[in-house]
């Protein structure tokens, strides 16, 4: 089954063209990496997919539904989950509340209307189980703002899982994460894969995505320049061209 189909997607801000006709298709259950130099439009592409930007042209089809102009929260309802480049945990909430609020999104508000209702206790219990998956159960009652970068990233990803996303858009999940914790992030992504989720992950670190992606898309100046296996990508002259050709240094 096709999960996501992006065809001839363009986006511009003012007169600056940021995406120049992006095309790709993602099958359900696939894990695909996106790489590309700084400013090549990776985050912008994700913003178009999650609805924060409305494309200037082209189409996005998610599970046979056209979502090109749909509102962000509607897309999320359909199962598109987003993990942000710059930590989107709710820092003033406790770690556990971060998960609880995600769990509630798919429930009737009446079930959780009274703070003392049974569903709230159940959700809190479920939240603890999710936190155990990432080793954060001890921190459940701490403010999320007190977590380290790596812990926040784990929380944000597991929160998206608790929310019930089917398609995960991970924007540089290892950015701001200590080298030691990158392994934990990789393990969590593997857990998502085991759950059968579809994952698109933006990364600078090609060695990192090599661990789980069988397919990598290379973006340059808002276009797909390569779409292939990691082995073929590594040896492709186009990759050298993209990173070194115009004098830009490779990142990571």
């Amino acid at each position: 089954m096709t999960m996501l189909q992006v065809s001839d997607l363009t986006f511009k801000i003012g007169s600056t063209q940021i995406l120049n006709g992006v095309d790709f298709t993602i099958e359900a259950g696939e894990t695909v990496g996106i790489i590309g130099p700084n400013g090549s439009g990776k985050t912008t592409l994700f913003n178009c997919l999650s609805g924060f930007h409305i494309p200037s042209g082209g189409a996005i089809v998610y599970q046979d539904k056209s979502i090109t102009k749909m509102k962000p929260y509607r897309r999320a309802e359909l199962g598109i989950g987003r993990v942000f480049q710059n930590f989107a945990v709710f820092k003033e909430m406790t770690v556990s509340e971060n998960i609880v609020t995600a769990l509630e999104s798919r429930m009737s508000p009446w079930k959780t209307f009274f703070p003392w209702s049974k569903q709230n206790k159940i959700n809190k219990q479920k939240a603890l189980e999710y936190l155990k998956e990432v080793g954060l159960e001890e921190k459940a009652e701490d403010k999320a703002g007190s977590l380290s970068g790596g812990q926040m990233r784990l929380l944000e990803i597991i929160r998206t899982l608790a929310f019930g996303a089917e398609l995960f858009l991970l924007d540089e999940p290892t950015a701001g994460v200590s080298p030691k914790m990158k392994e934990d992030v990789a393990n969590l992504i593997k857990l998502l894969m085991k759950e059968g989720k579809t994952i698109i992950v933006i990364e600078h670190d090609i060695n990192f995505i090599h661990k789980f992606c069988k397919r990598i898309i290379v973006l340059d100046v808002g276009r797909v320049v390569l779409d292939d296996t990691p082995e073929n990508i590594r040896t492709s002259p186009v990759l050298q061209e993209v990173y070194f050709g115009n004098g830009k240094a490779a990142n990571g």
Partner: protein
Amino acid sequence: MDYGIHLLILICIYTILAQGLNIPFGVGHLFNLAHVAVYAVGAYTTALFSTELGIGFWGCIYSSMAIAGLFSLFIGGISLKLSHDYFAIGTIAFSSVISALLINWKSVTRGVLGIPGIPRPELFGIDFYENSNFLVLVAVAMVIVQFVLYVFLRNSYGRTLRAQSEYEQGALSLAKNTVRARTVSFLISSCAAGLAGSFYAYYINYIDPSSFSLVEMIFVLTIVVVGKPGSFWGITASTAFLVLLPEPLRFIDIPPSILGPMRQMLYSLILFGVVWWKKETLFPVERTV
């Protein structure tokens, strides 16, 4: 004794008003400066309905809440177009429109002359001209409002409102309808303000535009800021504290013409002080994706 009852009544009215503001401002970080204008709408509704139309207590409080609630649509409209600082400016502009209406639409509001002779409510055959009886009435209302707002503060809706205040796009990515959450926050706070206004009109018996000026807005804002925005019991405690705070001034021998401005300065200084020391917890951090 009588004076004590008077202060307790004020505490009840201001608790309703401040807890109402706490929902959008404290929890949602929506800098709604039109709260007192909506409070005025509630007070004028009760004043006019009871004096001109002879409508009774229940009719008046429901109408005050409903009409004040309708005004939340304007505030919601402003928030659709403007965010952060611009929203605050928009709501100030909106509240000066209401002030101007109260002062200039003389055929209805009697302008600066105000509306006198608002009768105290009559129900259950109890005489609410007696302040101690009125206190019971307004205290019951306060308890009900506190209960309702406590529920909204601590349930899934409250968490959605907090989520949108911290990271709008994060909340949207969890399928939170943030626009609806904000609109509901204005609706809840406006109904509370309308109810507070209704009780204020009944209690004072005479209202004029001067009771609903920016000075009053600063007072309510001070209550929420001192009580810690987003908290619940903090707001209740700080209402009592700030209503009672200037009372010792009465025992010093100063003429009333100085006493009034002194209270205003006191509140403004407290607001300034708290904002100075606690500013990082008050305002939302702007983010980009």
